[in-house]
């Protein structure tokens, strides 16, 4: 058992239905009163390969995935070969009678006796559910919802039969697995991943337009918006490429529809000219960038925090931007909402920077409180009629943004340097004033920066600094060190740009040593801290093997 929680992994090939049963199992655990934290590790292929779906669950809220397995559901031999060494003491392996478990404590499931080969994953679900003490009816209902077909349908009936047979078989087995008791009378909880939460946050913020080109691991952001588009009055389009996506979003935003694009590194590379256009035309734009390891196509389905500086510097010329880096699924919702508001207020691009780990990580969450939320309301202000100046020079750099076609005022946007009306200019003195006006917005953005969150003692011997998805693993690593009597604190940045050093410099200087922990090889945020706040971290712990940070990884690195 890992810290009062249990960690189970389902492993197999793509096409064996492991994600389906993983999601059903995760949802059933949530409905039964557990908190969950799912990590998905998959290869870039539709069939074959080796994929895993790992669920850590506990009656208490969880910050992070962990290493060590208590239950391994092996749908193929490769899963056993790769992961048997990760078993904790008291762990159980479920494997087909035909597979070789070696020394591992194994329950050999006679899959082929229990069901037709089409339902082997359902048998695995049934046996695992029983071992975890889950209610059969609840699991069956969850499975039916996942199948998406009505009762009485042949597929539903046969799945149900497979599930029942599996449970009957499991009931006669001696396994010794003791899952922690669930929370009694739990609140109703949603099961959501980071991608879904960003989409829902954006919808709650008044999103009206989405354009995208499919790219792992960001695609589920678009798919989530699209699944609610008709209900929420959103127009969407799968564009011909990322260049089209970002330019469509800018056209829509210019015309008054709060707009979102989602992509990953290579797609963002294609979008960068559009990002620069957003900066120049002062058109609100939200870019949800779910990172994966590069360069180039890299590891398409794995995780990394390697594009922080690319998000910060992508796009030619100098213009203001903000980069939000949510550390949890809950923060992803907040970031989706906030990014739309920031983009509209400051008329500039705003990034939500996540990674595959957070994007695909399912968690149990109390439904978000919508009270007090307001949608973005684009447009308004400024002089009327022919006196209207789209780019009127103001102290805070924010000019009145009218919408084309919504009144007699003409709204002019130009990618060239322009005058206050918006028309092309090569007046170089005006160019300087316009550039200054745009950059002045950075000051306003800076005043609204979300301050980093500290835990632990003020003058901790060791202060672990995280941004984005590394928050959870860092929090748990610090907690474990604290339990060992060490003086450890954490500092998490949910926004990495702009940075406001007055919010954190002093406390970072008080720490015995500052350790920046991020999922890349070069310490991009550590470098940014040094450049912007003059703080040189004593240590940097990076990970760039395509896998997410874990508390154990951090503890090993700290000890080495």
């Amino acid at each position: 058992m890992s810290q009062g929680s249990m960690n189970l992994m389902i492993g197999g090939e793509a096409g064996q239905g492991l994600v389906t049963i993983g999601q059903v199992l995760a949802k059933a655990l949530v409905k039964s009163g557990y908190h969950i934290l799912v990590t998905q590790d998959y290869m870039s292929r539709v069939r074959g390969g080796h994929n895993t779906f790992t669920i850590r669950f506990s009656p208490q809220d969880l910050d992070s995935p962990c290493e060590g397995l208590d239950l391994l559901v092996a749908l193929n031999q490769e899963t056993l070969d790769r992961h048997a060494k990760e078993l904790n003491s008291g762990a159980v392996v479920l494997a087909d009678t035909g597979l070789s478990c070696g020394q591992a404590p194994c329950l050999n499931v006679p899959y082929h006796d229990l069901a037709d080969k089409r339902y082997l994953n359902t048998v695995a679900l049934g046996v695992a559910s029983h071992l975890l003490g889950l209610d059969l009816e609840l699991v069956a209902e969850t499975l039916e919802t996942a199948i998406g077909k009505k009762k009485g349908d042949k597929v539903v009936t046969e799945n149900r039969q497979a599930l029942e047979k599996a449970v009957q078989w499991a009931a006669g087995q001696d396994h010794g697995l003791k899952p922690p008791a669930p929370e009694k009378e739990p609140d109703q909880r949603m099961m959501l991943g980071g991608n879904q939460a960003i989409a829902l946050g954006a919808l709650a913020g008044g999103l009206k337009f989405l354009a995208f080109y499919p790219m792992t691991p960001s695609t589920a952001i678009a798919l989530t918006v699209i699944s609610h588009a008709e209900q929420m009055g959103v127009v969407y389009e799968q564009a011909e490429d990322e260049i089209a996506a970002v330019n469509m979003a800018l056209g829509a935003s210019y015309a008054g529809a709060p707009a979102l694009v989602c992509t990953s590194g290579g797609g963002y590379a294609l979008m960068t000219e559009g990002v620069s256009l957003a900066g120049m035309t002062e058109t609100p734009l939200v870019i949800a960038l779910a990172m994966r390891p590069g360069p180039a196509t890299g590891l398409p389905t794995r995780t990394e925090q390697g594009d922080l500086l690319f998000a910060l510097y992508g796009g030619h010329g100098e213009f203001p931007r903000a980069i939000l880096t949510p550390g949890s699924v809950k923060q992803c919702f907040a970031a989706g909402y906030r990014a739309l508001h920031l983009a509209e207020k400051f008329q500039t691009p705003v990034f939500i920077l996540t990674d595959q780990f957070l994007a695909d990580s399912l968690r149990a969450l109390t439904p978000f409180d919508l009270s007090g939320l307001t949608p973005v309301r684009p447009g308004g202000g400024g002089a009327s009629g022919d006196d209207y100046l789209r780019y009127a020079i103001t102290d805070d750099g924010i000019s009145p943004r009218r919408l084309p076609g919504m009144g007699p005022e003409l709204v002019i946007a130009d990618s060239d340097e322009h005058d206050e009306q918006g028309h092309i200019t090569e007046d170089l003195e005006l160019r300087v004033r316009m550039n200054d006006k745009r950059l002045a917005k950075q000051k306003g953005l800076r005043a609204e920066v979300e301050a980093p969150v500290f835990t632990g003692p003020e003058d901790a011997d060791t202060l672990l600094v995280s941004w984005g998805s590394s928050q959870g693993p860092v929090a748990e690593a610090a907690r474990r060190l604290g339990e060992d009597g060490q003086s450890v604190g954490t500092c998490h940045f949910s926004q990495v740009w702009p940075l406001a050093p007055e919010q954190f410099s002093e406390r970072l200087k008080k720490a015995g040593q500052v350790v920046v922990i991020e999922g890349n090889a070069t310490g991009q945020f550590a470098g940014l801290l040094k450049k912007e706040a003059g703080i040189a971290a004593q240590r940097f712990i990076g990970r760039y093997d395509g896998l997410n940070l874990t508390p154990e990884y951090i503890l090993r690195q700290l000890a080495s």
Partner: protein
Amino acid sequence: MVDIKDYGDFETAWCPGCGNFSIRKALIQALAESDLAPHQILLVSGIGQAAKTPHYLRCNCFNGLHGRSLPAATGARLANPALKVITNSGDGCNYGEGGNHFLAALRRNVNLTMLAHDNQIYGLTKGQASPTSMEGMHTKAQPTGVHSYPFNPVAVAVSMHVGFVARGFAGEVEHLTGLIKQALAHPGLSLVDILQPCVSFNKLNTFQWYKERVYKLGEETKHDPADWDAAIRLSYEFGDRIPIGVIYTNDRPAFDSFFPVLQKGPLATQEVDYGVMEKVLESYC
């Protein structure tokens, strides 16, 4: 009634004698005759001499990136179905840098009017070959002549069953005005590829060259624009004789019509229903 004077007078950066002047004149005439006021229209353009057009008449204007007028126009139109959205860009912008967007726009069929100022040369960058330059044309960048086969936007659009495909000539302003008016009235994507002399850089396809070749469909020859086979044949006629007029039409429904939310007007005026949002969240429980 809207008057052509409503569209104002502007100093331009075009060369004297440029075909863009005639296209601007025809556009303003067509807008006035269509009773469209400056604030009701949005001109979207990319980069190039043609793409400066929106700066030279009173209108809402989105002068974006090179090659990207169509996606930006698509987004704007899908955000506000009350806007009459028109793109003005050249052959390089539309068919070269923005080639993928052109193909996608033909398939998508958003209610836009695409005015392609086609002078078969790059003007702003001072005379390199464009996608529509004829084989053998010599430039400083193609000193041994253009070896690539010229792109035929009209044939491609007809082959894709685009709802309104026309070819105009900047030297026939009245005729062009009529084409633009019909394009504006078409409830889907309308393409008007406009032959336009470039007095500074295209010494091959001059005003005289076009003048000797163009003929108006419906005057000397009968043509039924609903006849796709005839339209395809016409779209390949580009040599001693070049047809101008409406080449092809159909009534394929516009992309916009598939979004019920757009029947309710501009997206900016529509409220977020937090009751519905609540239900959306519940669906994850």
